[in-house]
């Protein structure tokens, strides 16, 4: 199976230009970038993809062992780069994918020109001398939330998620049609994401990096963004007025402006 199909890779913009690779975070798919990536299509080869288990990815490619840590997802990013022969890559990662980008750049630093980390967190759970924002029990609470939300629609959704075309009418019935994920995989991705601790990887990556920090981000608070800026050898933090964890959706203009300015600099 090709990497393109596995990760539902889509391309826009100028094929000959410098590549810009957008990676979505936990809870959604490449739709996350729909208000941001058009801005870069004139000047970049825009590449989007879905992590295995999300959106239009090939669910049968899900391998519990490979994806039991963020490293497996970072491997996927590198495989996409190799398959599409992307060099001098501007990597834009939201949420957990910010750290996935850091891990990929630690393996192949020469492949990346810039990293743009939107709401990054190297560790979500509080530790001695470190405030991640959450306790372990909160993550269990998240899994419960996911369970209650999948309960109503998992069996209905399953054929759609699996790309089963013999019941096309289901596609129209779906009330929440974006960001479909396979419930079982989403649960595991939640665990891998929120139990991850990649603080030590930050220092390994000296690719020029931009940390985009939202005000009042419940998932990745400002202190965490500052931590990332401090620990990475060549990172700078830009504070956004946008509130919440998804400035790519709530403030796409401001987000794209900040990225553009960083890339010009």
């Amino acid at each position, binding site marked *: *199976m090709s990497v393109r199909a596995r990760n539902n890779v889509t391309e826009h913009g100028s094929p000959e230009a410098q590549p810009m690779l957008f990676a979505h*975070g*936990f*809870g*959604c798919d490449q*739709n*996350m970038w*729909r208000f941001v990536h058009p801005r870069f299509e004139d000047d970049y080869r825009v590449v989007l993809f879905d992590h295995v288990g999300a959106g239009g990815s*090939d669910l*049968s490619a*899900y*391998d*519990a*062992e490979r994806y039991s840590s963020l490293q497996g997802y970072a491997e996927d990013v590198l495989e996409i780069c190799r398959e599409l022969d992307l060099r001098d890559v501007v990597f834009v990662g939201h*949420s957990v994918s910010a750290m996935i980008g850091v891990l990929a750049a630690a393996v192949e630093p020469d492949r990346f020109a810039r990293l743009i980390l939107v709401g990054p967190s190297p560790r979500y759970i509080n530790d001695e001398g470190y405030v991640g924002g*959450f*306790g372990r029990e*909160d*993550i*269990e*609470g*998240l*899994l*419960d*939330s*996911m*369970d*209650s*939300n999948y*309960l*109503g629609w998992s069996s209905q959704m399953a054929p759609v998620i699996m790309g089963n075309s013999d019941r096309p009418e289901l596609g129209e019935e779906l*009330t*929440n*049609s*974006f*960001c479909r994920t396979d419930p*079982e995989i989403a649960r595991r991705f939640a665990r891998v994401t*929120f139990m991850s601790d990649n603080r030590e990887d930050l220092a390994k990556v000296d690719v020029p990096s931009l940390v985009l920090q939202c005000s*009042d*981000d*419940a*998932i990745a608070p400002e202190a965490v963004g500052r931590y990332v800026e401090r620990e990475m050898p060549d990172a700078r933090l830009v504070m956004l007025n946008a*509130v*919440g*964890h*998804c400035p790519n*959706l*709530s403030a796409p203009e401001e987000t794209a402006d900040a990225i553009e300015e960083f890339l010009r600099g």
Partner: protein
Amino acid sequence: MRVEEELLEPSAEDLFENAPCGYLSTTLDGLVLKVNRTFEDWTGHQREGLLGKKRFSDLLAPGGRIYHETHYAPLLRMQGEAREIALEILRADGSRLPVLVNSVVVDGPEGEPQVIRTTIFDASDRRRYEEELLRARRREQEIAQKLQRSMLAGELPSATDFEVGVGYRPAERELDIGGDWYDAFWLSDDRVGLVVGDVVGRGIEAAAAMGQLRSAIRALASTGLPPAALLEALDGYSGCHEVGGMATVVYAELDRSLRELRFACAGHLPPVLVQPGEDPCLIWEGRSPPLDACAKNSRRAEASCSLEPGSLVLLYTDGVVERRGETIDAGMERLLEAVRAHRTEPPTSLASTLLRALGGGEHDDACLLAASVA
């Protein structure tokens, strides 16, 4: 009379404040702009403490807050509405109110999204019921798993000149636990019965059917029936008791003193034979349709082959070779490739080595039995 009028034609304000559901309006960033009395009553939060001060996500338990930020808020931004989202609101007294939430984004006069309107329904009873359903589902999975494992446990036959090893990997997705099984038992001092089978279906039913077939084969084997005749008798059992129809089974008798393997495959994948100094091969003989799928009283095929000292035989289920989006031939070739790479290992470790090397297994059980003669 005035009261009656009020009831029959209530004011908009009354409809809003005392609606049988909670109402909450926020800015796009979630800052609370307005709540109704029902919301205050249900949650114990007073509007003075909320309006312009709290965000909707501040009212959620931490786990739900993550869910809100990573699922709910993005959905709302992208499609302008979200429906039937299950959340828990933290009441003023710290207790939790399970709710179902619908939201719409309302545009301002310029057509720009401006406000999020949310209705909140008390879902306490529903949530309890859902939890019961979830518990029941998990319990069923556990029972199926235990049932299956208890039937796969037990000591395997071994002797100085004969070894058998097994590998078993349940489907990673718990719902998909199927009815794969293996079995190995002494028939006499020199002969062992080897079985690998796969029952149609999933969960408890499949595990139970598998258990019945397994016992039936043991009972029939003890009467001395040779492989094809044993499967014919098993057809009768399966048809008569309506159990295990369309199951696939391979039954083999290995005679360690004659160094002979006699076997019959009912719709099952062909055994792999590894003779010393030769390339591993598939044995496409002794084949007939799956259980209870033959015409009445039709005869099943049987085949035999002699085993050189140091030979190895592998029986396995489709979960070992099948991968989505790939032909079965490609899967069998991968199995042969893995056997070439690991053939020197003793059967006791070989079976699990092969399962590991072949990977996969998200959606199906995989079961592999390896037997060798010295």
